[in-house]
């Protein structure tokens, strides 16, 4: 019986190819939209996670001042080199500590100039941030101690100033400071918040303090924790140490902030997932609309085929058999729509992933769910028209013109 219903459904669909195609269009688009949204969203989540992992998941960032909601900070004294040394001495499980001070600067080489950020730091910065040298070398101890006029370029700065030329050994200007390029970094691309992490120039901290800032301040400290060690524990230790060093009494709040990258990861992936869910839900609504389209056409079809239904009932078809026939027809239609939607979604996802430079991560689960949903749409929206057909009075149906 089911086999016959299936054959009949195919027969009926072939009889009205154009109408069938238009009928399933809604489901095609709905399924394609759901799968594409979720696939791209999944790709974005993977990208966020990977980027943060490339920063090092065991990273703590310590900044002066306390967050006062919505990005505001209370003013607080900056850090000093002694703070960094103390952390290195007293906090267990530290893998690397990098002091950083930065400011915006215009770099100039020949006719080329480029606005970027100059960061005073040391070789630990490379370790903490998982940076690899593409060319050249790190700072030497004497350069760090004496504040040598040398710099390491981020990939973007190198490209903007030198293009395809070799940068090593060239002298560039960082504002009023002239320094020699000793190395350049591998590209890491955009950060999750859209900042270009390759857009920076590194110089020794001492050089920054003496020649650019004119003070001994340190704006930010990055600490990476040894693999397997507890970041929460390290965070707690750092807080205690800094409260002591900054003479904060028990009744006062911290005048500095320790951020854990794991928290940031969670927050960012959470946001992407919520967005994905929302887009998916919107797409699901379009699938529902597609289902209503199927119901509409099935109702028209049932009315058109009233006589046929009358004949079938008169020669002994049971209600249930007529119901099955029309239900199967709706399901076959919507599953065709679902299958076409899956194909369309795969093509669209690959293209969209390329256009948005998000990795294409095939989520087999959502493909299956999307397809099954289209089948479900056929069942739900095919049922009402099919029941209408099955409940017809054979004589009335036969008299129908």
């Amino acid at each position, binding site marked *: *019986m089911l086999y*016959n219903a299936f054959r009949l459904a195919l027969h009926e669909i072939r*009889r009205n190819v154009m109408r069938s195609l238009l009928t399933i269009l809604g489901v095609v688009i709905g399924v394609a939209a759901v799968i594409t949204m979720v696939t791209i969203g999944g790709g974005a989540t993977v990208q966020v996670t990977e980027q943060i992992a490339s920063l090092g998941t065991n990273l703590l960032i310590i900044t002066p001042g306390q967050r006062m909601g919505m990005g505001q900070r209370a003013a607080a004294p900056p850090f000093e080199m002694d703070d960094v040394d103390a952390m290195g001495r007293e906090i267990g499980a530290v893998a690397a500590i990098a002091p950083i001070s930065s400011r915006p600067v215009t770099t100039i080489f020949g006719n080329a100039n480029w606005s970027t950020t100059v960061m005073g730091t040391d070789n630990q910065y490379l370790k903490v941030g998982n940076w690899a040298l593409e060319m050249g070398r790190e700072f030497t101890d004497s350069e760090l101690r004496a504040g040598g006029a040398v710099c390491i370029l981020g990939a973007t700065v190198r490209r903007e100033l030198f293009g395809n030329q070799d940068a090593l050994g060239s002298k560039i200007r960082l504002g009023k400071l002239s320094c020699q390029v000793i190395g350049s970094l591998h590209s890491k691309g955009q950060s999750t918040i859209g900042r270009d992490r390759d857009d920076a120039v590194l110089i020794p901290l001492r050089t920054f303090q003496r020649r650019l800032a004119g003070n001994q301040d340190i704006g930010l400290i990055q600490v990476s924790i040894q693999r397997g060690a507890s970041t929460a524990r390290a965070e707690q230790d750092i807080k205690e140490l800094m409260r002591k060093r900054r003479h904060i009494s028990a009744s006062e709040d911290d005048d500095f902030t320790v951020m854990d990258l794991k928290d940031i990861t969670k927050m960012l992936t959470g946001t992407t997932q919520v967005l994905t869910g929302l887009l998916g839900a919107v797409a699901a609504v379009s699938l529902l609309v597609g289902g209503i389209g199927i119901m509409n056409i099935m109702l028209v079809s049932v009315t058109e085929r009233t*006589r*046929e239904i*009358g*004949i*079938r*009932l*008169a*020669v*002994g*078809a*049971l*209600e*249930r*058999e007529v119901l099955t026939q029309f239900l199967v027809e709706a399901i076959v239609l919507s599953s065709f729509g679902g299958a076409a939607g899956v194909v369309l979604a795969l093509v669209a996802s690959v293209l969209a992933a390329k256009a948005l430079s998000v990795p294409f991560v095939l989520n087999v689960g959502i493909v299956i769910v999307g397809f099954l949903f289209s089948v479900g749409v056929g069942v739900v929206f095919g049922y009402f028209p099919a029941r209408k057909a099955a409940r017809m009075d*054979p*004589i009335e149906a*036969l008299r129908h013109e």
Partner: protein
Amino acid sequence: MVADHEHSEPPLIRLEGVTKVYGTGEAATYALRGIDIRIGQGEFVAVMGSSGSGKSTCLNIVGCLDTPSSGSYLFRGTEVGKLTRNQRALLRRQYFGFVFQGYNLLSRTSALENVELPLIYRGVVRSKRRELAGKALAAVGLQGRETHSPAELSGGQQQRVAIARALVTEPDVLLADEPTGNLDTARSLEIMDLLTALNRDRGITIVIVTHENEMARYADRIINFVDGEVESDARHGEVA
């Protein structure tokens, strides 16, 4: 005038005081006004009467397509009016073959597939269906036209496809509503010959509605309807 049809065994078809009313109140139409008819196994009955006299309504009730508004219809001793829709469908598929007024074939569907239709609902497998449908078409003289759709067949051929469809299940009862209504005399007589042969050779009980005396003559018994009532019911030769 009414002949005595008392048989020793219960009749195949027994209508008693059957009425059929369409609509209610002012708009009520009495299609049947209390009819009593008994038809035994193997009879060949013609139902006659002017248009609107209730012939089709009566045939639909006999064929379990419709139920009486009041009165009793027993088919093989079963009160059809008390059955559910599904039970009546099961009776139809098991015992009845219909030739509808107008051909009522599935359009854009081949003659063979049209004839196969009742077999599908009897759960006959496809190859067997093909074979039986082919035989039924041959029996009505349509071999070679299996793949033609109704639009590609003449009126007489379509009517014969409809008859083949009614016969393919080898029903106990064949009900035909003006099967020759749209045909010329030669074709009509051909079809009546076919029905007579079926009645005689296979013992199929046949009830046919017609308003042509020429066709009614083939039957053993003629029931005359006037305005929803049985005006006369006579065996062949009993009525002038």
